[in-house]
């Protein structure tokens, strides 16, 4: 039962990845006993499991995900939030207020159109739009910092193995970085230039996500940038 590519090789949709007794995982599909790729990405074989790490994809909400979204609409019973997914998410007013009365409470006092919020997904399936909650520690309106958007499939690369990449980013730039699973990342630093540095590094990770030795190269870039800035000052 052969596998037809090497690990981490670039494949395109429709490429035959394996034949025989294998399990089709992410971004692949099975027809008979043949496994094909369904997205452009890097193929991986893990014992019997075959999956593709996609290079371009969109975010599909999963229950429990931390997401960063933008409020796009105020309704009588809550907010509509753009979470960078095929579906608009709902945040109920009763989630924020314990006794909500539409005739009394002005929802824009809590979140207004254009505000960024941090939330987790509490419900989502084929028939319903995703439902959000902000009733956990650290969730709610984003008051400071800068938000960047990257391809959602590259989020694991920004975090790194056991958080190595994100830990390095936080240390080197001095920013607090929150990663939403939907591809939006919040960087809060002491100065806007710290935040800019963090965003630059994140963009570099997004561009070069499919290459190896990335953490070292990003560290190097950040250090060089910092040196450059120090010299100008």
């Amino acid at each position: 039962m052969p596998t037809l590519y090497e690990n981490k090789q670039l494949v395109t949709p429709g490429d035959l990845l394996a034949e025989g007794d294998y399990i089709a995982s992410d971004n692949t599909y099975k027809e008979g006993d043949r496994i094909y790729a369904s997205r452009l990405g890097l193929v991986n074989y893990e014992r019997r499991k075959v999956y593709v790490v996609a290079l371009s994809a969109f975010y599909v909400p999963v229950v429990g995900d931390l997401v960063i979204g933008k409020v796009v609409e105020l309704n009588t019973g809550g907010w509509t939030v753009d979470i960078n997914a095929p579906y608009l998410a709902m945040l109920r007013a009763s989630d924020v207020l314990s006794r909500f009365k539409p005739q009394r409470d002005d929802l824009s006092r809590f979140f207004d159109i254009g505000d960024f919020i941090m939330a987790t997904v509490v419900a989502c399936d084929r028939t319903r739009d995703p439902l959000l909650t902000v009733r956990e520690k650290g969730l709610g309106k984003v008051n400071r910092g800068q938000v960047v958007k990257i391809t959602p499939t590259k989020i694991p690369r920004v975090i790194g193995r056991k958080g190595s990449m994100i830990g390095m980013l936080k240390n080197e730039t001095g920013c607090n970085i929150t990663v939403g699973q939907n591809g939006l990342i919040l960087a809060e630093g002491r100065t806007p230039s710290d935040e800019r540095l963090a965003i630059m590094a994140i963009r570099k990770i997004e561009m070069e996500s499919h290459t190896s030795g990335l953490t070292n190269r990003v560290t190097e870039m950040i250090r060089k940038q910092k040196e450059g800035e120090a010299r100008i000052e």
Partner: protein
Amino acid sequence: MSEKPQLIDKKGLRVDGRKLDELRPIELTVGSVDNADGSAYIEQGKNKIVAAVYGPRETHPRHLAQPDKAVLRCRYHMAPFSVEERKSPAPSRREMELSKVIREALEPSIFLEQYPRTSIDLFIEVLQADGGTRCASVTAASLALADAGIPMRDLTVACASGKVDGKIALDLNDTEDKEGEADVPVSLMPNLDVITLLQMDGMLTPKEFEEALSLAIDGCNRIYALQKEALKTKYIAIEEELE
């Protein structure tokens, strides 16, 4: 009426100097429209076509949404300056038909059932036309869909063949299409060996038709290799830059 021009010369070469089984030069670029979720640009001979994909996203107007699958919406449009005589920018009968056949050529390749209630919007803009635009459009549109990260069974690729001056030829250009005897556009998912579009304009004997079909499939397979290369180019370039 003017006399019918000679389409194949004494050496057996066609009006643009190609052999019978030769494709026009093809150039494919992925990611040419920054604002779109996915895009591609194709130059096939004198054809210049841009394809842009948006979605999957909320369907507007809402009543068009399907509860069990995503809808693919396709607009094929020719720019007024794309042909010699100005074409009215309003959608013509022909453009509506092509929008439909291109949509139906691409639909079987996409996992539409994975994203219910959404729509995938595909815009195809022909900047310069020189025959065989429906095929070039399918080729570019499929690349744009892959670039948008939409899960697909296979890339879709299309190529036409036809009959000029009594001979079966590959990838007809505008002159050959208009003056020739027949035109057979074929769209294919090569890895799965599935035909998703097959049309015929003109007259062919069953034997000629089979010959034309197998020639078109051969052309599709050649374009397919270019398509895969175009998708990978962007990422391989970044990798090489680092080495």
